[in-house]
């Protein structure tokens, strides 16, 4: 397997409570990996170690390694902003920045001074809005506030904003859980289209979504990885009893 992310001996504590127990997994490049498991099993915690968001919480302690392309992102000399530029996050609830639609997409590019001319920014904003499937709907009102969009449109805007800083990895923390079925489907189809160019890691608690999206599956329970493998194998022939029970909907 061509691993993009490797996790080695990762342990996370919230105060005295251990949230992740000795995680060792690999996440394949340019595929969709789905992390699933019952709520409270540490899915989101694991996801947030990949863009170093966990350290935003007071009292979270992390040990072990997360390697992206072989580089441990927790090394002292690593610049956390570069990590987050390379590893985009689609949050659970869409969080448009309090500015215009255009400025939302251009925000990250400005932060990293990725372009030099207005024209280039304009072209890039259009490009990423097209990729996110939003251009047709918003091109006449690019300078309206982003909050004037529907929730589903907002989430696609957030996708465009994340893609605009040219990440290699997209993280999705239950990215459709706040959306209606049609908007969810829209986001899912975007993610499927994008998987050739991006390594995608999605946390979900719905089994059906996992089955629709996953190339590779990680099943977690109580802070441990119970089973990880190609989706077809795990879904049709789970090796572990707990995974089997989960897939049968026993809990």
């Amino acid at each position, binding site marked *: 397997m061509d691993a993009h992310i490797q996790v080695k001996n990762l342990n996370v504590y919230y105060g005295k409570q251990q949230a992740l127990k000795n995680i060792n997994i690999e996440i394949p490049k340019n595929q969709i990996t789905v992390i699933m498991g019952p709520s409270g099993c540490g899915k989101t915690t694991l996801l947030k170690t990949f863009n170093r968001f966990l350290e935003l919480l007071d009292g979270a302690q992390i040990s072990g390694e997360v390697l992206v392309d072989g580089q441990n992102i927790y090394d002292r000399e690593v610049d956390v902003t570069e990590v987050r530029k390379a590893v985009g996050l689609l949050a659970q609830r869409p969080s448009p920045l309090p500015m215009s639609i255009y400025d939302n997409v251009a925000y990250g590019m400005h*932060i990293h001074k990725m372009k030099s001319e207005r024209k280039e920014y304009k072209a890039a904003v259009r490009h990423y809005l097209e990729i996110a499937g939003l251009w047709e709907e918003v091109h006449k009102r690019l300078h309206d506030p982003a909050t004037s969009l529907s929730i589903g449109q907002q989430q696609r805007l957030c996708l465009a904003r994340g893609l605009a800083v040219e990440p290699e990895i997209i993280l999705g923390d239950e990215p459709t859980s706040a959306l209606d079925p049609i908007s969810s489907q829209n986001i899912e189809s975007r993610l499927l289209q994008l998987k050739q160019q991006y390594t995608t890691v999605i946390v979900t608690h719905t089994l059906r979504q996992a089955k629709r999206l996953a190339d590779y599956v990680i099943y977690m329970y109580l802070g441990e990885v119970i089973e990880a493998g190609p989706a077809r194998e795990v879904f049709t022939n789970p090796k572990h009893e707990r995974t089997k029970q989960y897939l049968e909907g026993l809990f």
Partner: protein
Amino acid sequence: MSRFITQDITRTEDQATRSSAALRTRQDQAAKRTFFIITLLPVFLIVTITVALLVRAWPIISAYGLSDLLLGEVWRPNNGQFGFWPFILGTVWVTTVGVVLSVPACLLVSIYLAEYAHARTRSLAKPILDLLAAIPPVVYGVWGLLAIVPFVDNVLAPLSDRWLGSVSIFSVTQPTGFGILSAGIVLAVMISPLIISVIYEIFSTVPHDLRHASLAVGATQWQTIRNIVLPQVAPGILAAVVLGASRALGETIAVLMVVGNVPNVPTSVFDSAYPLPALIANNYGEMMSIPLYDAALLGAALVLLVVILIFNILSTLVLQRMLRRKWA
């Protein structure tokens, strides 16, 4: 059928319990009314004080006219000259210097506490800052007298004379240390706890999701604060500053101990001044035989009260709107 009707006058066998319930209801209502009246008392007080000041100041307002009174530059009660202008300007100068000195530092401290500080640092620093607010003004006055006035006289005035002497608002004409700058420094320290705690509170109204959205694309914490958080809290910061200013406007004892109390129109931060509260506190009750003197001092009090009321109402309205958003 009549289960919940406690004030029923028809006699029944359980009349005893029933009348005790009726008594409780009546007590409850009496308590409610009492609390309501007590709550209204402050409103009533503000209205009566304002009206009383207006009535008592009326003789001088009707004799001189409001504009002559407010804009008159000479204060010689013995000659019948009552110009408030030196005192109004003194108040403005002292307050402005205090606010200008205090706000940048307050802003930085609040940003640090709200955005950067570890929970443990925060829980240590906040109570200490709040303690600054508990120091009595007269203690600040003594501190100003013993520490700030000599510091201004021996250090700041010579420095300013040497480097900024040509700029009129920094020129040193009467080097004593007593004056606007000393009062401003003392005020800056006194109003800081209030401004910091209000700005800090405003920062906590910004949802974490917004900060995370910015951090997630690789923005630094400072970029996030400057681009996302600060624009959101800007009106609240302004309101906090106005609230601090209204506190500074009314500060009396600490200011009058260091400001020099000379009724001239000040032109430099090193000049002495005579703010309105100091005027009232120093003179009310003395020399009351001078005609209209009493009315003049109460007129000064009225001016001060009205300005502070307007400041407070404006900032409270803005802050209420912002804090409501936090719980919405």
